[in-house]
């Protein structure tokens, strides 16, 4: 029988067991690049950076396994040397985040609608539990349906179920060719065009709209990219400018993100323009829309909800919580899962859902 062999630092296990005994909250933290994200930070700091390193990487298996404290930049550099990459384009924000943080937050970049989200690439995890045990879920293979898919459940969990100590991710070869086209279009027409193109066999890998321009990225076999370029039209964007645009979008460094108050709306991609003032920044072919704070009389959550979407309070005061509220039954299931994985409520208390 296998043993869940936890080669995690002894100190962590002691801290976790101590916290469980005393019912003290632990604030799990990698590089701290996402301290601003989620609800308020509470608990004693448990710094996870020391447990780092790539455990296994074989390019022909399309899988990389690394410890939670491994910097994202290290993972990406190792992959790039073999012509591979993380296709969900995780954001790095300002500091160099850790891989554990990237997965705990589960955010994805501009390629998300075309290549998949962070959770789509998670193949396996190791989890340090409140009982001080290290459990392994999933693995290093592409297809694995043994047991519940706890690994994907941990992606985006903000650490509330335990410490993600190791992650295995599916990686992909870098596209042979990448080109960006720019079209001057009003937002509504851009969204309609994005959805029209997404229904055609075109090698799309990005579709965004900002300040009057639609940006369309094509990635793949040179023949396919060239054919798609003809079909879409617009003006080719020089590579350095294109790369800086997609990078600014991915890492939240576009000037749009400097607004003092920001909402992030996740929506069905073909949603027509919303009844909110001001021009949005649009990504994911229309499925992700950012708005600077509207005047007080606008209820952003209600507008998003009416369009079958949700609104996340990204920056600025959040008296009603950062995240769109969950339906009662979903919230109850969250509580029941939390109670079973972390009965004393030690891991990142309140970070995902107030009071949980």
């Amino acid at each position: 029988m296998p043993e869940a062999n936890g080669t995690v630092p002894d100190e962590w296990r002691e801290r976790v067991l101590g916290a469980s005994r005393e019912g003290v909250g632990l604030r799990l933290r990698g590089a701290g690049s996402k301290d601003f994200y989620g609800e308020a930070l509470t608990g004693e700091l448990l710094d996870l950076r020391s447990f780092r390193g790539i455990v296994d990487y074989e390019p022909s298996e399309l899988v990389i396994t690394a410890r939670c404290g491994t910097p994202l930049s290290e993972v990406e550099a190792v992959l790039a040397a073999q012509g591979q990459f993380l296709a969900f384009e995780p954001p790095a924000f300002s500091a160099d985040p850790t891989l554990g943080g990237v997965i705990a937050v589960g955010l994805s970049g501009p390629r998300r609608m075309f290549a998949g989200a962070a959770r789509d690439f998670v193949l396996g995890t190791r989890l340090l539990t409140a009982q001080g045990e290290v459990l392994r879920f999933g693995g290093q293979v592409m297809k694995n349906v043994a047991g519940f898919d706890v690994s994907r459940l941990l992606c985006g969990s903000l650490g509330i179920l335990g410490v993600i100590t190791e992650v295995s991710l599916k990686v992909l070869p870098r596209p042979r060719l990448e080109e960006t086209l720019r079209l001057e279009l009003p937002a509504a027409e851009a969204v309609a065009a994005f959805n029209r193109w997404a229904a055609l066999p075109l090698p799309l890998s990005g579709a965004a709209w900002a300040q009057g321009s639609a940006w369309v990225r094509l990635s793949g076999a040179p023949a396919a990219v060239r054919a798609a370029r003809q079909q879409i039209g617009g003006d080719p964007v020089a590579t350095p400018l294109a790369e800086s645009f997609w990078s600014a979008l991915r890492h939240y460094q576009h000037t749009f993100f400097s607004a003092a108050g920001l909402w992030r709306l996740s929506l069905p991609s073909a949603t027509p323009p919303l009844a909110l003032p001001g021009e949005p920044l649009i990504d994911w072919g229309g499925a992700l829309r950012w708005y600077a704070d509207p005047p007080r009389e606008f209820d952003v959550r209600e507008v998003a909800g009416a369009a079958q979407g949700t609104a996340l309070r990204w920056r600025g005061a959040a008296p009603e919580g950062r995240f769109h509220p969950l339906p009662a039954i979903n919230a109850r299931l969250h509580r029941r899962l939390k109670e079973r994985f972390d009965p004393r409520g030690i891991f990142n208390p309140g970070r995902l859902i107030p009071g949980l």
Partner: protein
Amino acid sequence: MAGSDAVPDIAAELRAVLPADCVLARAEERRPYECDGLTAFRELPAVVVLPRTDEHVRRTLLTCQRLKVPLVARGSGTGLSGGATPHPAGVLLSCARMNRVLEVDPVNRIARLEPGVPNLKVSEAAAPHGLYYAPDPSSQVACSIGGNVAENSGGVHCLKYGLTVHNVIGLRGYTVDGERIELGGLAPDHPGLDLLALAIGSEGLLLIVTEVTVKLIPRPPMAQLVMASFADVHSAGNAVAAIIAAGIIPAALEMMDRKATAAVEPFVHAGYDLDAAAILLVESDGTSEEVREQVQEIEHVLREAGAGALRVSGSEAERLRLWSGRKNAFPAAGRLSPDYYCMDGTIPRKHVGRVLEAIGEMETRYGLRCMNVFHAGDGNLHPVILFDANEPGSWEHADRFGAEILELCVALGGTITGEHGVGLEKLNSMCVQFSAAERAAFFAVKEAFDPVPLLNPGKLIPTLVRCAEYGRMHVHAGALPHPELPRF
């Protein structure tokens, strides 16, 4: 009615809240539901319910909850792990009548479906818009989308297009308490924990699904298949790695060994090279320019990797003929042998040759034949063990053979099931793959959704007692199989 006293009670309670034709209680009516695709496991359910609406499902759940009667959901019954084997004292809920395509939205590129819709029907409904639903299990003519969600089903195109979990974006259904629940939806990101991912592949243990929203993607205008022959299984395995290492993600990458090609060729006349120890089927899809470019690269890599004969499909008819052998591998096994047992382990691709050799050695040891078809691109093996259930002890023998293959998969860093699920079949093997603490975590998930438990109880997660018994039976004189392999 002979048999258990509970039978008429449950049926009567259900008839009080459901239309009479939704409740089957006579033994001969229940008989067709006694097993799924894994016919070695049979149980007659106490009652069969055939709901037509969400409300019927809710009422069934409330009745089961009140009477504390187990409930097992079933799609088309094509599953291969006994996930839909009935509970003898419980209700079997068949989704067969909930089979409407509720909506195809070509603009948002989604379809909303009732759980009983057959997989292939989804793509048929989307076809007028140039769209389709990517996961294509071999049983796609029959298997239902609800069953695909329960098992997180795959198919031959997973490497490029993903599994069910990558292609289902929303679920609606009911908790065990009959409460309406919605997970995911048309918008891509959702607040909170990813309960949608948890529900997919949960084998009917967490909730009952009454509506599935799937992603539709553009149908590639063209596909071409390359067939390559190899003189030994190791070179075929190396060729698979070489394709991936060259930065190519083919639409499909399948391997069949000589035993498999020999079994299907007389049956489908696919034109397989019967002299080859193994053949690879490599598919490229996309625009005609893209496919032409990729097929050239694939041919080059395969030649470099030592392929003998190479054949590229020259027409759609030829491509489908080459596929027909692969897709008919299991029926062909049925022609060779009175019974067959299909396994479903996954391994890191690099171990393909090693595993096929080990299986060859096991064939000699167990005195049973085994042919191998294999989703090589994903490392997902389907060894098919041939046996004759009429020979006493033969099923047990095949079962042990299969378990040994799965243990080898685990020892090599793989898993006991890539796409068929655990069900009842692989409960023992779960003891090998997961520690007691890991299994306890699975029970914790189960309890959070279904504390009694009533939904498909006894499946997917083995109890401590069961693993202890399996351990005693299995570890002969303290010696584990494959002692040379590192175990975590």
